């Protein structure tokens, strides 16, 4: 009974952290002279108020979920991937190139290849810092941030030069964008809204990642290396290889998110010079969603929908009562801080449970494996 209560409390921690962030947001709104009730009502209405609004929420949630799935893999392997933005961009670039180059191939085949290209592009962009961490001991937090900056410039260069829309190239304005993908290459729409098949792909992959992490040797080893690299090495696991793999896979999912954005929503790439101009900061917000989902692929689904809703709601809040949507970026930051800070209570209770288990244990009786597992965390 006690364990069940505390398991419930563990599950609720992120929710409490988010409510705390929203409470801080309410104070900020009061300081700005806006009633928090009006603001949050506008936010909720914008995200869930109509069928169309909810569809928009799911559209925003899709890249968040894909990035979050990658984050689940890398963070479980104790590899901190901050490079989602860059990985999305490179995945999108490669996928766009496929769609613009092979125009004679049947549509469904191009979509398949484009998604694979996105996966591959992200894998390469995550793989470079992954290999550098595994074999040269380069801090992956720094290298992934650097890779983000490099990817932005690569995108700007390609969209202004080699990949520019031929019709723009002749104009004086030279808007840095690619040509539009052929209609038959677009991901299918699911309803008369902007909701597209990418959302289904993302949900399906959430289950794949769950199986990968908990039902395969690869996933087991990634998690083992993440929990205790020394013990894993002692057990004969090549830790460097699994760290690199964790970051490669993580990047691949972000790259796929980029490809899905192009084939499902924008149908072309266009740059305003910044990363978030293309990604909408999904590379960062995906981390928020994954943490909220306790680095569990299935829990990341509702988490992504929640943060997608916040983003969509923020835009309509801006339109309705002129509260800049930047408020939500700030609140997302607070959610991250609160969620990682609240981990301490989970760890404390775990330790207490462990202590109780030890006391109850009769001499000579081995410790139950669950307790050992928890002790290793």
């Amino acid at each position, binding site marked *: 009974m006690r364990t069940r209560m505390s398991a419930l409390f563990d599950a609720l921690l992120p929710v409490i952290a988010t409510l705390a962030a929203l409470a801080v947001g309410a104070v*900020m709104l009061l300081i*700005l002279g806006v009633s928090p009730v009006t603001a949050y009502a506008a936010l909720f209405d914008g995200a869930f108020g109509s069928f169309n609004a909810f569809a928009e929420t799911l559209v925003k949630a899709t890249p968040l979920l894909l990035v979050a799935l990658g984050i689940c893999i890398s963070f479980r392997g104790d590899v*901190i991937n*901050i490079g989602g933005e860059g990985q999305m961009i490179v995945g999108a670039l490669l996928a766009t190139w496929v769609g613009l180059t092979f125009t004679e191939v049947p549509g469904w085949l191009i979509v398949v290849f484009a998604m694979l290209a996105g996966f591959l592009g992200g894998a390469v962009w995550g793989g470079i810092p992954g290999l*550098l961490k595994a074999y*040269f*001991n*380069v*801090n992956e*937090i*720094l*290298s992934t*941030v*650097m*890779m*983000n*900056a*490099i990817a932005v*410039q*690569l995108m*700007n*260069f390609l969209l*202004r*030069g080699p990949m520019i829309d031929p019709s723009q190239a002749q104009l004086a304005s030279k808007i840095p964008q690619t040509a539009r993908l052929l209609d038959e290459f677009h991901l299918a729409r699911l309803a008369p809204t902007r909701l597209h098949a990418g959302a289904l792909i993302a949900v399906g992959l959430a289950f794949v990642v769950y199986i990968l992490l908990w039902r395969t040797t690869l996933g087991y080893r990634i998690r083992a290396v993440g929990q205790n690299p020394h013990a894993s090495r002692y057990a004969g696991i090549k830790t460097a290889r699994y760290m690199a793999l964790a970051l490669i896979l993580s990047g691949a999912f972000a790259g796929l998110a980029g490809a899905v954005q192009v084939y499902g929503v924008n149908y072309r790439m266009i740059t305003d010079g*910044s990363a*978030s101009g293309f990604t909408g900061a999904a590379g*960062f917000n995906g*981390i*928020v969603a994954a*943490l909220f989902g306790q680095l569990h692929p299935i829990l990341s689904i509702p988490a992504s929908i929640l943060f997608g809703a916040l983003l969509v709601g923020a835009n309509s809040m801006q339109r309705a009562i002129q509260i*800049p949507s*930047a*408020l*939500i*970026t*700030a*609140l*997302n*930051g*607070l*959610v*991250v*801080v609160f969620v*990682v*800070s609240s*981990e*301490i209570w989970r*760890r404390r209770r775990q330790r207490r449970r462990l202590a109780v288990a030890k006391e109850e244990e009769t001499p000579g009786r081995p410790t139950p494996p669950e307790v050992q597992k928890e002790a290793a965390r």
Partner: protein
Amino acid sequence: MISELFTTTVLIGILASGIRLATPYLYAAIGETFSQKSGVLNLGVEGQMLLGCFAAFYVALTTENLWLGLLAAMIVGAVMGLAMAFVTVNLHAQQGISGIGFYLFGLGMSDLLFQKLLGTVETVKGFPEIYIPGLSDIPGIGEIFFSQNILVYGAFLLVPIAWFVLNKTTLGLKIRSVGENPDAADSLGVSVARVRYFTIILGGTLSGLAGASLSIALLNVFQQNMTSGLGFIAVALVYFGAWKPAGVLAGALLFSMVNSLQLWIQVLGIPVPSDIAVMMPYVLTILVLVATVSKVRTPSALTKPFERED
């Protein structure tokens, strides 16, 4: 066209703006050196800088007093540092991730305040150049080193001060011991928590100052996300400089000189794609990290929360 780069005027221009552009990197990276030396990776520098940028700009614009702006930026940075210290020292939160949280907070908050309080891009009259008597008249050298504003001089002065504090004072010894072996430091009566609070708040204050140097001394405007990754580079510079102030200085200068060169290439209209030029410093950083990381030892307790063994 390339030959245009090598005229004396242009070379002096490149070097002078290179020195100037090193300023924000130096403040932020020296501050980060202190916190990393004590074992804390503060990845929220970018957010602290953005809020510092805005605070300095807004206060300077409304009070018409640049010094008050500077003070405001430092206070905002210190408060952000205090929050970071509480979260990492008392709550043992994962440092890299909570840093990203503080970054997002600073990014959104500075944007929100900008849109609510200013709305449009305005300019302020920033700190003026101070010509050091005598020295500023030396041809070339004078223009490069001795005709800068006060925050530029301050940034370069900070390097020897930081070296002295870290290596020649008791405080520095405490900071280093807490970053290398917190258990031993604790058993000798050094308060690990207090030292880390000090370094993280100092780091935040200097990040705020770094932001101020952008908005009221170098660019004299405020725009959304105007640091555009500068704070993250400052964190990388600490690794780059192997946790030594002189190394950080070298890295900051390398970065700012490449940036300045890149700006001048655009000004002169030399046909090198500017995107590729902008990319180079980042590629360079990764390469240097690869080359140096195996030879340099990270502070042993970096990113590890300290818990007393009971």
